[in-house]
């Protein structure tokens, strides 16, 4: 792939070629074009980290509503945190997954401007996290597995959010999720942004879709804070280890869900199929485990995360 072209440029070109091809009537000409289209399609296979950032934020990327429609039966949404209000940036409810009742929770981004504004671009307020926690505790009571879907740039930085304890809400979720006695499975669908994502992602099995990202801050933020130059965000994306393959290598996630070439939105049906297969498989693993093993395994997993070394200190040296 040419270095200066992002995945979005390629996509535009591909769509244009496909349109041209459809307008042709001559079969021979069509055949000639197929070769070009195929080559272009294949070139979308090798993606840079920055390409994946663009794909994770792609406006057409399948959002939680579509995923729930495709994967679950009879979804019923439940609202509110019982204290303050309902946060549209996080949706949750009950559904059947292959006939098994499960609690489904996830960030909602919306697919047009009006929906984006309504859901605050998937940036939740504290009441959103408290709603999620309420639904998770309910799931624990009725012994239902929990599935969470992550797609958020981060928790909302605003006056109301601070007043109502954004930090407290996230912290409570982290602690509560670590010792919930049912299987918790998380899929990072698009952007996994910082504490806002982690507050729904302390899970037995964390899966990332191939072109999703997961990081402590955006590449733009990393470049502007550490290099004082927001325009170096592409470079930041490369060093930040935010792609699914990097994180699997660091053993911070448990698996990757394959996406169609060029991103999930280019063939949603194939994407849903691999998503459903992956969820079914990980549910099979964890459904048979006793409560203790679920809690202990989850605890140990997070307990061991860190990139440090301990060395020998002799008493005389430490003085």
């Amino acid at each position, binding site marked *: 792939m040419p270095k200066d072209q992002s995945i979005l440029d390629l996509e535009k070109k591909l769509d244009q070629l496909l349109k041209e091809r459809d307008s042709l009537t001559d079969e021979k000409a069509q055949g000639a074009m197929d070769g070009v289209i195929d080559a272009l399609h294949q070139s979308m296979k090798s993606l840079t980290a920055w390409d994946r950032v663009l794909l994770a934020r792609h406006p057409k990327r399948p959002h939680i509503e579509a995923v729930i429609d495709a994967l679950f039966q009879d979804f019923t949404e439940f609202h509110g945190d019982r204290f303050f209000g309902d946060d549209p940036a996080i949706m949750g409810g009950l559904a059947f997954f292959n006939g098994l009742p499960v609690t489904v929770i996830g960030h909602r981004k919306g697919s047009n401007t009006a929906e984006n504004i309504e859901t605050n671009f998937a940036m939740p307020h504290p009441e959103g996290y408290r709603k999620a926690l309420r639904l998770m505790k309910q799931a624990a009571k009725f012994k239902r597995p929990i599935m969470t879907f992550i797609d958020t740039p981060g928790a909302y930085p605003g006056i109301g959010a601070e007043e109502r304890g954004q930090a407290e809400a996230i912290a409570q979720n982290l602690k509560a999720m670590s*010792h919930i006695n049912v299987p918790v499975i998380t899929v990072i669908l698009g952007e996994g942004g910082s504490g806002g994502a982690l507050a729904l992602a302390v899970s037995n099995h964390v899966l990332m879709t191939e072109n999703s990202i997961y990081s402590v801050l955006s590449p733009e933020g990393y470049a502007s804070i550490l290099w004082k130059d927001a325009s170096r965000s592409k470079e930041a994306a490369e060093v930040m280890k935010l792609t699914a393959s990097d994180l699997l290598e660091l053993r911070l996630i448990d698996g990757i869900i394959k996406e169609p070439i060029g991103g999930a939105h280019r063939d949603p049906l194939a994407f849903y199929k691999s998503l459903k297969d992956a969820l079914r498989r990980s549910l099979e693993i964890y459904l048979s485990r006793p409560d203790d093993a679920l809690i*202990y395994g989850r605890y140990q997993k997070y307990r061991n995360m860190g990139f440090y070394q301990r060395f020998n200190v002799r008493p005389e040296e430490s*003085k």
Partner: protein
Amino acid sequence: MSFEILKKHLQKERPPQKIKVAETQPVQVEVPLGLYEDCPFCQRKLNKETLEKNFFVCHHCEKPLRLRSIDRINMTVDAGSFIEKGKGYITLNPFFDKTYDDKIIENKNKTHLEDAFIYGSARIDAEPCVIGVLDSHFMMGSMGSVVGEKVTKAIEYAYLKKYPLIIFVASGGARMQEGIFSLMQMAKTSSALYLLDQAGLLFVSVLTDPTMGGVTASFAMLGDIILAEPKALIGFAGPRVIEQTIKETLPEGFQTSEFLLKKGFVDKIVPRPEMKTVLGRILHYHA
């Protein structure tokens, strides 16, 4: 219960490791040049002797200065009772960023600390406890892999010894240089606190200036009792980020200890001279 297994695991594997780690009292380290000379808030000259008597509260503007962890421990625990634990950690710089290595070395030389957190056993008002202190002079007390690990170790140590745990928080949040690893420390420290819930042990979190970001959104806000020092900046998102997002200037006193007390997120604001008495009393209640 699952945590019985964990307890066995901790007892079996952790203490008698091959590595021999010194357990020493912290030595009085010289105050680095520049620190405690001028008040960082009102920029007026400070008198060192008055300052120490005044618990490092500026005698001009009454603002508590940001403390070194050693000064904090010395003014909080019974004299000579602190024994430092868990020394000898270094970060491995996950993104291989040279500027981060340089920064760590610079901060080590400046502060004589390994990283931004120290902990150990101590007595306050004769009550034994585990005390941990974040030092904002080391990379703004940010939480990377080492701080996350040491906070978790402090929690586990309190769990094994059945001591109450006190943590003084002073941190700008997650350490951005360590990216996703810093994020995971939030999950690690928060889930470790569940051990103390299981064992019925007390955790007192003391929020001092500044308490922000990923640290607030993990162990800092999970205290059974949450105390705060007066006039400290406490919040999740930084004030500048909020101003840029909402495109307004923030009201006076937003994200201060007093603001959090009013909103119901802090149990009590304790001025520095009373901190030891209040902590001692809290430990007596739970003895």
